[in-house]
């Protein structure tokens, strides 16, 4: 199917369909809410956004930074419009200010504040700030893009659903450029092959 880019307020369909993300219903007609790629089947319609902020969902694996160390717990930052608080009773290890952790999101309440569990402390590495809507393209179909980084660049890489990427890699400049290329060209198809060509040319 040909890809189509839609803009906010664009009329999509007047048929009865199950509504996915980033669409809204007005007078029995479906309109797009964001700039994005239209994804439509016989009974389902949604728009994949091309830019946006992270909206937390339960069971997401996300990367967080310890922003502050208080007497009773830690303030953690995670690329959203709020910070989260982790009581010291919830974690056995001690965290330090500035440490990067990977955790599972266990619950989200109405105000979009979150709770986390399964906390892993990540070792020394670099952090890249990408848009959360690009994460599916950064991972690729069946982890194809992620395996490309692991096999060709021998990178140790963790991608959080919130758009933050932690990595430890000798050729980190190539990796960062490859990630930037994916982010800037996420609307194009056959991206894995183009990125493979780019890495093989530059390595």
């Amino acid at each position, binding site marked *: 199917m040909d*890809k189509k880019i839609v803009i906010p307020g664009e009329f999509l369909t007047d048929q009865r369909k199950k509504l996915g993300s980033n669409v809204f219903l007005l007078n029995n007609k479906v309109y797009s809410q964001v700039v994005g790629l239209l994804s439509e089947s016989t009974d389902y319609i949604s728009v994949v956004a091309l*830019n*946006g902020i992270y909206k937390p969902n339960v069971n997401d694996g996300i990367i967080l930074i310890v922003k502050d160390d208080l007497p009773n717990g830690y303030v953690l930052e995670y690329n959203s419009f709020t910070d989260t608080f982790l009581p010291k009773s919830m974690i056995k290890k001690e965290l330090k200010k500035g440490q990067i952790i990977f955790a599972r999101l266990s619950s989200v309440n109405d105000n979009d504040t979150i709770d986390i569990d399964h906390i892993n402390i990540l070792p020394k590495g670099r952090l890249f700030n990408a848009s959360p809507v690009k994460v599916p393209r950064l991972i690729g179909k069946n982890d194809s893009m992620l395996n490309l980084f692991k096999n060709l660049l021998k990178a140790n890489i963790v991608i959080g659903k919130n758009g933050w990427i932690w990595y430890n890699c000798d050729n980190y400049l190539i990796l960062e450029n490859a990630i930037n290329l994916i982010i800037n060209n996420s609307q194009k198809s056959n991206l894995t092959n183009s990125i493979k060509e780019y890495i093989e040319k530059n390595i």
Partner: protein
Amino acid sequence: MTRLDNRQIDQLRPINIKLGVVKSADGSCYLEWGRNIVIATVHGPKPMFPKHLADSTKAVIDYRYRMAPFSVSDRKNPVPGKRDKEISLVSGFALEKAIDLEQFPNTVIDINSIILSADAGTRAAALTAASLACADAGLPMKGLVSAVASGRANGEFVLDLTKDEEDTFDAVDTAIGVLMPQNEIVLMQMDGFVNQKDWKKIISVGVKGAEKVYELQKKAILEKYPLEGDLQ
């Protein structure tokens, strides 16, 4: 009849739009509208400080319209005056109609429009650029706000007035912001004296002009995301 700058009475000045020019912002837009130049940026949604200003049911829009000191021939005092504050307030109301604010409670969305060069119709240009910057930032929106000035000059009902036309003896200048494609008027400010019959004509000229602006906005968004071609 053609005008001083060889335009038809219902013709816009040349408009040139580019999205995503400010990398540090979540969304941005550069707009040239005749001799007007505007840069609009969007930061957020982010936590509201001080917290008592936050709304627990929706996000708050903080829209700022500012003219650079060098944007006009005489130096403009950079301290925001009455005019800046009023335009910021009413344009913010227009954007509130377009953005789905209920998704981000207790937050603020900072929208800044800076006029680098001014030649009449800057509030319309700033609002047009700000709505594109919001779309570029990925904010959920009902539609785009397309704004344009229409009015009367030398007895003719004209679209997109220049500074010379604003200074004629019978000038009426109306800035109109339309939420497209719903065709809902979200901003209207008028300067001058006019009867009801003429005023209706001015509005219809403005709404038709906003449709033309909307087509250019659409084109600018699609240009940012080419579906084919080499990696950029």
